[in-house]
């Protein structure tokens, strides 16, 4: 029932408005990513010439098949990102709602999901 209602509501929102909303979310998500995620997942190198732990783990896992830094990925879905934030993955712990609220989680997902980073940049966040 909840899904049906959500689809119905989406249909009432004009596409341009939905895109703008998504873009705004991605802009917020970029800031939240910087605050909560970048200490592990940024692309910059760290001590000993290694990547940061999250980036290094993904580099080892995918061996270059996809970019190791999350912000450079184009294959992530919002649902997957939200699942990882709330469930964790291997040594990455889960995040509580007192840390990242549901709305903030959606914003981070919007930022990292396919195409949203372009939206964030076109909205003035460079």
């Amino acid at each position, binding site marked *: 029932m909840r899904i049906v209602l959500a689809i119905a509501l989406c249909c009432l929102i004009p596409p341009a408005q939905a895109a703008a909303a998504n873009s705004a979310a991605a802009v917020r998500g970029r800031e939240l990513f910087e*605050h909560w995620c970048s*200490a*592990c997942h940024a692309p*910059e*190198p*760290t*001590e000993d010439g*290694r990547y*940061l*732990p*999250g980036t*290094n*783990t993904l580099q*080892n*896992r995918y061996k270059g098949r996809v970019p190791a830094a999350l912000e450079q990925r184009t294959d992530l879905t919002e649902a997957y990102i939200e699942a990882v934030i*709330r*469930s*964790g993955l*291997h*040594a990455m*712990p*889960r*995040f*509580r*709602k*007192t*840390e990242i609220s549901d709305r903030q989680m959606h914003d981070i997902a919007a930022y990292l999901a396919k195409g949203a980073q372009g939206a964030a940049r076109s909205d003035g966040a460079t």
Partner: protein
Amino acid sequence: LSKTVLPPDVSAASFAAALEQFERAIGAEWVFSNSEDLELYRDPYSFFWDTPDERLASAALAPATVAEVQKIVRIANQYKTPLYPISTGRNLTYGTAAPVMGGSIVVDLKRLNKIITVDDKRHYALVEPGVSYFDLYRYIQDHGLKVWIDCAEAGWGGPVGNALDHGVGLTTAPYRDHFGAHCGMEVVLPDGELMRTGMGAMPNGELWQEFKYGQGPWVDGLFGQGNFGIVTKMGFWLMPQPEAQFSGRVYFPRYSDLQALIEHLDYLENLGLIGYPSLDSPMGAETLGFGQAGQADRPLEELMAHGWPSRDRIEAFCDDRGGPVWRLTLRFYGSEETVKAGWAYARRRIAGSVTGVTFEDGNFYHLPLTAEERQKEHLAHFGIPSLQLFKIVEPDLNNGEPLDGHADFWAVLPRSAAGLLEGQRVIFETQRRMGVKPTFNPFSCPQMFYARSFNLGYSLATFRSDPEANKKGLALYNALVVACAEAGFPQYRSNIYTQELAASFYSFNGHSLQRFREVLKDAADPNGIMAPGRYGIWPKRLRASKAEPG
């Protein structure tokens, strides 16, 4: 999803009534009781993951103010629902956000996140428990303040929670003992009363963060690794931002140089001339990070293959391998003149008493570090929070497999060559006895979290899909706790599963220390609602049963 649990001796009806009261007190949005929300308060690094012994919360509450914390505590007394406070909830390897006693209600203080004061003239801060090291660092940078924080390895932890678990950092000795560097607390006591310690008790003073004792018995110690209240504010002494940092390395040629090395190290550190010292040995592999890094070292494996080697065999091994046996890294903080003078003095002093010692200049930095310099260094030595240490769980350090978590074991040893040798031997023998490949040897080096002792230990892997591996890991972990304690080597902190075991070894005069703590506990917390079982202290009503969750 996790099963639902109730606190011991609390009926479902009474629990429901308590939750209703909590919702009225802090808002329904901040009372978490469904299984999906409570998943977030599990310990993903637990040996007991998904087993009946996993310590699960019955609910979680997230107050935003001190007044709300007081309301929660008063309601808990009314319904005898046990509370378990967490600060940032990032006590990974020691329990994360999960309670010591299953069925406890977690009080999640993350929303108490105010940075009340940072004074860079008098070098202190006053913060709430939800403030992380990242938060405090950003605040200091944003405001251009000239102070450093001494942060724990994981920057998402925070000063209050880390200090209250006796956590440690990596700058200079007065600051890296985080509990020792605190000055003044505000605490909600088990009856809901608000108390300030030290000079915080004198309403018209301004010395709360500068003179920690006030007058009379100093009670702050009760709240470190304790369960006598919920700390809602805590002051910390901060290090003035130094102008420069320099590190130098000292190479000692012989195995037998260790005692002289330690005496020099102690002299320099206890005189306040150096910051966090690092010791390693070119003779043996690093043991931090599961002892699995790097290539197999066959000669070293052969040395250790038949039990702990004799002194003669160790020295012969060193002779065969050649080169220096110990490498000591000294870090100096101050101005360009003082750090260079400190290094010159250390060289003169050590060279004057140890023959064959050699020196190597490390990096010199004008501070703060540039962006490029930050990418080369371990940032906690520069008061900068990060998550760099999480490299120890990366797959390339674990035979290609990502780890799900780790449980840290750190024994405290005397700062002597004999003490270190005994610690190495005890851990080696315990690993061997428990059927795991030993990773400790005569060249395993300690960390120096505290200025007057060594810390020797390592991280044991945990898994969320392999209960058998967790069972073996826990058995080894417990065996290490017991073997080290029997040798007189405690842990500096324990995870929620071994606090009880670790506490049992403090047994002088019929456990008089524990009995005194219990007298205090019974007087201060007669309903036994404050963090039952934390570090082995149980309230009277749960003491006999050790509180199985309902």
